[in-house]
């Protein structure tokens, strides 16, 4: 099965679709590719000034700026991955109606654009880390795995949404509102450790988003990060967000496979 999924044909097509996406994105802009680094850099500067300098958000951890950035970067990655994929199938309707290509390839190619943005953003984080003299520990080796979990979670949602969008155009708005709720459910702008009721902390950490973002902060930025292991004292419960990730992914893939049979007719 893996051989079929990663056949040469699929790899070649995927590479070319991603390349096209990337090329078209910065077409007609004077600075071109520079924007892909400049844009996050400028956005981070604003966030830094607003939250760290003026609002003086106190996470109660060292390297607050990098801590904040890490959360925002991963959140943006999730947002770009899911919201960006919603229209991917419909947007490539011309291909789907006239050519036999694996439909999931289109969603994956869109998701890879988000991955590229993420990698560039991580480079920018690296710059901020150096400026902040963040000490890197061996735990950073976990970081790619954490990103993979976030990617799998996002991919499950992206597959589901893009397939549902073919039939129901409401999906965009529903997801927009859901993301707004998820934004506040994820400890991006507030220190989760300082929340009074343990039950709320537990609810927050059911979300794979909270789990991955906090663990990314833990492994890369500071050991003082409040993670899922502190939220749930029972170690067995700490696998819940991971289980949710896998369940969401399976549901997404299953629904996508079922619906993809009639994409060509429904678009």
């Amino acid at each position: 099965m893996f051989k079929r999924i990663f056949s040469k044909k699929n790899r070649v097509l995927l590479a070319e679709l991603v390349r096209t996406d990337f090329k078209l994105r910065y077409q007609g802009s004077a600075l071109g590719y520079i924007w892909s680094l400049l844009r996050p850099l400028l956005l981070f500067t604003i966030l830094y000034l607003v939250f760290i300098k003026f609002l003086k958000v106190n996470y109660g951890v060292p390297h607050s700026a990098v801590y904040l950035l890490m959360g925002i970067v991963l959140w943006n990655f999730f947002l770009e991955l899911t919201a960006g994929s919603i229209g991917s199938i419909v947007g490539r309707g011309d291909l789907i109606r006239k050519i036999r290509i694996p439909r999931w390839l289109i969603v994956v190619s869109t998701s890879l654009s988000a991955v590229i943005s993420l990698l560039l953003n991580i480079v920018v984080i690296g710059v901020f880390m150096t400026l902040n003299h963040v000490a890197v520990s061996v735990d950073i080796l976990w970081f790619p795995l954490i990103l993979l979990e976030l990617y799998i979670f996002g991919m499950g949602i992206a597959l589901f949404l893009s397939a549902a969008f073919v039939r129901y155009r409401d999906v965009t708005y529903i997801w927009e509102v859901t993301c707004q709720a998820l934004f506040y459910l994820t400890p991006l702008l507030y220190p989760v450790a300082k929340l009074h009721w343990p039950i709320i902390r537990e609810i927050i950490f059911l979300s794979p988003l909270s789990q991955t973002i906090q663990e990314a902060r833990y492994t890369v930025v500071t050991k003082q990060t409040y993670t899922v292991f502190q939220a749930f004292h029972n170690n067995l419960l700490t696998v819940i967000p991971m289980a949710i990730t896998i369940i969401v992914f399976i549901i997404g893939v299953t629904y996508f496979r079922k619906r993809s049979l009639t994409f060509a007719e429904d678009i």
Partner: protein
Amino acid sequence: MNDDVVIKVDLVSKTFRLPHEKNSSLKGLVLNFYKGKRTYETQQVLKAISFEIKRGEFFGIVGRNGSGKSTLLKILAGIYFPTEGEIHISGRLTPFIELGVGFSPELTGRENVFLNGSLLGFNRKEMSSMYDDIVEFAELHRFMDQKLKNYSSGMQVRLAFSIAIRANPDILLLDEVLAVGDAAFQKKCYEYFMELKKNKKTVVLVTHDMGAVRQYCDSAIMIEDGVIIKQGKAEVIAQAYQKLFATEAEAAMKKEMQFKTKIAKEDRWGSGSLMVDKSTINLNDDEVTISVTYIANRKIDPPILGFNIYDSAGTDIVEGNTQRSRKKTYPMEPGEKVIIKWQIPNIFKDDSYNISLSCCDQSTVNFYDWFNKANSFTISRGSPTAAIVAPKVTIKSYSKINGSAE
């Protein structure tokens, strides 16, 4: 499956769901679900179709618009999935059925070559080695670094075709490929097809063009309303297809002829609630009398009855109706007849005249009957004139005027 059979279509049916009103919103879905209403109807486009295509065969699928032939091709290509039945294919298939699919207008010709190549499964390195040949074949050297949106449609097709023939699949699916391109390009297509035939490639061609069927295809099927109505040698199918259209054209022509003769014979229109039954004309030197019988086919309110007289040039000479003459008419019951006699002073010059008879309701909007050339008469007094009418002109008196000297 026989080794020689590369495509085997086994009782394939395809049913589309046609939404009455496309339900692209959850609200509509919920509402309709709540009401228990069916929001779509089904349309069976293909009905249990079976056929086989042998290795090396040039196979035609012909049929009218909407017969289901393109749906069939899309099923063969794996773009649609059959609702019922199965398809067995052995060998590599072209992934697309049209030229230029996946072209991006914002990219240059060069970039599109690589993008399109990737749809065929070629990586950058492989495409690079073929690139010069492709450009050569398409004759587009000067344009490769321009954006595709600046290409003419002919140039786009040339480029697409040049890439497509690199695919080198075992089975080629083509939908109306010959409809585009100029004569020189069509010649290239022709040469390419001949080469395919020589190399014993299997080609499935969907087309309206019986010339192409005769020229390239070995065998073909004709589809009508989702079923195969004829299957056999290309020539037989081409003839059957043309005959289908010929008989239809003939029938249509006959109908039109009947209509035309009817119109020519009886140039009339109207609802027919009240109709001119017959008319007679009496002529003498002083008067023209037109007697018209009307028959009612429905119960109607008092109508307006009228006539017009035209000369041979079509000029409306005289017009008259009951409203103008302030004559009250009768309401009428179905089957009832009335007779009206018009008397007109004979002012007509030497010519032939046509009479139109008409009847309408009091609003003069709804015409029951307007009957052009319902009757005619000819005047020949032997004194032609260029004037429009020739009323009787008499000389009342004629005398010298005297007494001025007195």
